[in-house]
């Protein structure tokens, strides 16, 4: 038909698009990994001192520039973490839409770049160019400030969140406690946005979010206590070091209560991240869009950036605490030390191992991210009283029980370490079996529908 002259991309443009996509798909993870692996370990006093001493030729203790070098390293690491969060958030936005589409028997965004990979860039550009609206009756200053609180809450978590053996900006002694604390920044931002929008829907969403996040801090804290008790430290890196590379060395398998605690933590994190089934704060069918109803353009994009960057945080925290973090199977602390070499700068093999550890951490985290997405597109939303019920009647008691059980368990494990070993193997085997059964069931589901079969076409 004449009036529908669709501008099919010319062959040249298509090649360009394919090239751009492939380039981006390879370059972005490489860039992110490079940033993390080469920048973040630099925020390390001995390394920086060695750098000043050997490369710059100054004595770090007396040189005036030392503090500047420290500050620059911190700044660079901060930039690296923020870039990492922003870009992963963006990519997750595309990824979640694709996964959701497949789950919903749709195709999903597949036009911008190969498989729609560049969609998130197009969306971001579109949102950046939109008008930054502030409702006339809104409290303009708070309205404008609220998204930054949310972003701050997300970014500050990344400071103490490890991503590899040496990839952590600051290995705080109270790392996990710090993470729990700064997450509350997000609530402040949500509350501000809901209040300042001067919209009833926004206020509703904000109050719901606040009630939810504040409540779920309690079971989350209790669940975190379980690995803390098992490791004897609050440091995130310490928690990971207390686990091993093989699955049966993970906290999740070593203690039945830890498995329970994992689920409690996971549910609480879903609630704190406002993900379905706990998306009451932005419940679309009830509150239109909840606390960010009135936002547009760049500030709206910030909320979504945080939402998707939170996916990484959810996965990373759970991985750190229960799933062995970055631990490479078969690589012990001695191996790490021996690979590093005796020099003031680590040897090449150490850097390579850093990459491997980052990869392992990312794989575990991405698995959990997938689970979160999958849950979101499966489950209905719960009501606010049920949300409270679940928290206080189910999760908190279970969390206490898990903590008390762990206390006893740790005594038993110290008395007879074999108990822990056997439990780990049994729980691991059970998990594998359950997963297998689940996949079987999934496969069966397709054939249960008349005239339906496995078909992976139509992308």
């Amino acid at each position, binding site marked *: 038909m004449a009036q529908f002259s669709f501008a099919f991309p010319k062959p040249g443009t298509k090649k360009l698009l394919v090239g751009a996509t492939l380039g981006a798909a390879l370059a972005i993870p490489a860039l992110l990994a490079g940033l993390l692996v080469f920048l973040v370990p630099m925020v390390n006093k001995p390394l920086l001192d060695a750098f000043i001493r050997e490369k710059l030729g100054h004595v770090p203790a007396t040189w005036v520039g030392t503090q500047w070098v420290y500050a620059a390293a911190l700044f660079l690491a901060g930039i690296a973490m923020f870039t990492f969060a922003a870009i992963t958030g963006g990519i997750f936005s595309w990824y979640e839409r694709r996964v959701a589409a497949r789950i919903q028997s749709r195709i999903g965004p597949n036009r911008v770049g190969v498989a729609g990979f560049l969609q998130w860039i197009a969306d971001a550009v579109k949102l950046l160019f939109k008008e930054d609206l502030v409702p006339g009756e809104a409290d303009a200053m708070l309205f404008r400030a609220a998204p930054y609180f949310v972003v701050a809450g997300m970014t500050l978590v990344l400071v103490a969140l490890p991503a590899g053996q040496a990839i952590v900006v600051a290995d705080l002694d109270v790392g996990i406690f710090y993470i729990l604390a700064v997450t509350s920044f997000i609530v402040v931002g949500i509350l501000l946005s809901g209040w300042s929008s001067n919209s009833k829907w926004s206020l509703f969403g904000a109050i719901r979010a606040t009630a939810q996040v504040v409540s779920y801090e309690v079971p989350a804290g209790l669940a975190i206590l379980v690995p803390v008790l098992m490791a004897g430290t609050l440091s995130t890196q310490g928690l990971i070091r207390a686990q091993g590379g093989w699955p049966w060395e993970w906290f999740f398998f070593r203690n039945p209560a830890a498995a329970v605690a994992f689920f409690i933590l996971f549910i609480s994190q879903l609630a704190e991240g406002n993900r379905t089934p706990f998306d*009451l704060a932005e419940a679309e*069918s009830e509150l239109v869009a909840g606390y960010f109803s009135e936002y547009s353009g760049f500030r709206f994009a910030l909320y979504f950036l945080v939402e998707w960057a939170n996916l990484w945080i959810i996965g990373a925290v759970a991985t750190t605490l229960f799933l062995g973090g970055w631990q490479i199977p078969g690589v012990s602390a001695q191996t790490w030390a021996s690979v590093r070499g005796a020099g003031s700068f680590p040897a090449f093999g150490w850097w390579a191992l850093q990459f491997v550890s980052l990869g392992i951490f990312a794989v575990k985290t991405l698995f959990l991210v997938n689970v979160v997405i999958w849950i979101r597109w499966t489950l209905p939303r719960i009501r606010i*009283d049920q949300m409270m019920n679940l928290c206080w009647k189910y999760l908190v008691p279970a969390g206490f029980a898990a903590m008390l059980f762990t206390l006893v368990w740790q005594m038993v494990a110290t008395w007879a370490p074999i108990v822990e070993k056997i439990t780990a193997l049994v729980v691991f085997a059970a998990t594998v079996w359950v997963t297998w059964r689940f996949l079987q069931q999934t496969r069966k589901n397709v054939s*249960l529908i008349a005239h339906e079969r496995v078909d992976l076409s139509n992308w």
Partner: protein
Amino acid sequence: MSKLVLRRLDRNNEEMLINFGPQHPSTHGVLNFLVETDGEVMRRAIPDIGYLHRSLEKIGEMVQYPGYMPYTDRIDYLAAMFANEGYAIAVERLLKIEVPKRAQYLRAISCELNRITSHLVSIGTMATDIGAVTPLVYALRERELLNDLLEALCGARLTYNYHRIGGVAFDMPEGWRDKVLAYLDRLDSSIQEWDRLISTNEIYRKRLGGVAVISRAQAIDYGLSGPNLRGSGVDWDLRRDVPYGAYPDFSFEVPVGCGWAGVVGDCYDRYYVRVLEMAQSSRIIRQALEKMPDGELTAKVSRKPKPEAGEVQSRIESARGELAYYLVSDGTERPYRLRARTGSFMAMGIIEDISPGLMVADLVALIASLDVVAPETDR
């Protein structure tokens, strides 16, 4: 309408007045609810309709009898076959026409197919309103497959205009029968999958069970009908109890709410009655396809029928309850008065009295479970 409503609200309190609509994701068309809430708990929700009022009853007085048929499609765009059939039956009673058997069977088949599409939307939007988006897409997928069949039968996916005064417009296309049977196989298994996916889901059951209970007495008192009435435990189905068309020839069960997830008459009962009805519709269609007699498609009707003066009412069991056309004829070729009594309109009337004490999230569930469709309330 807001002025009068606002006068009824006590303004000297801490409660919040929210306009729940007319543009709201879960109002199923253009509805407005003036919701007075105390935090999450509603004091009252006052429905405000009329945004889709198209004066279909007035139009009925201006067009000739056959010309009104396409307008009936617009009364309820999710279940246009029923509106077609009800109108056709009313005019046939006025004209004292006997409809051929084959046409009656085709009417039954098309209506039951339409009941399935309508219920699929209903249960799908119900799931979406509760927060699960994916089941809606599955329901719409099944519906689109069925819409393809209806499109092959009558040429349109939504505004079918399939029934005619005295019969139906078209016979089944070639090969359609087998396609329908294959689809029904798929549908039966899909319903089971649907149950596993969402009906048995614990969150879903807890969200709907025991919420917005309409007791048996209340349901009758407020004139609810169809699945809403059956959800409240009243064993009543016009297809079985006041049979019309070809329904006496089929055997089927009438699902009645029995408190599957809590109390009889809660949202879950109204929802699950619809799921079970789809299976029954599938059963009816299979029987009809099997017993399909040969014969004419329409009785002999003049192009410009002129019924004698008098009045009739036709009652049929639509997907949204009882659809009754009240036709008054004054002996001319246009109806003197045409009235459509629709299920959704009656269902809207009960919301204000059921809503106190519910939560805001429950209002969404209540609206979805009553399956109100805005064009049908407003006409």
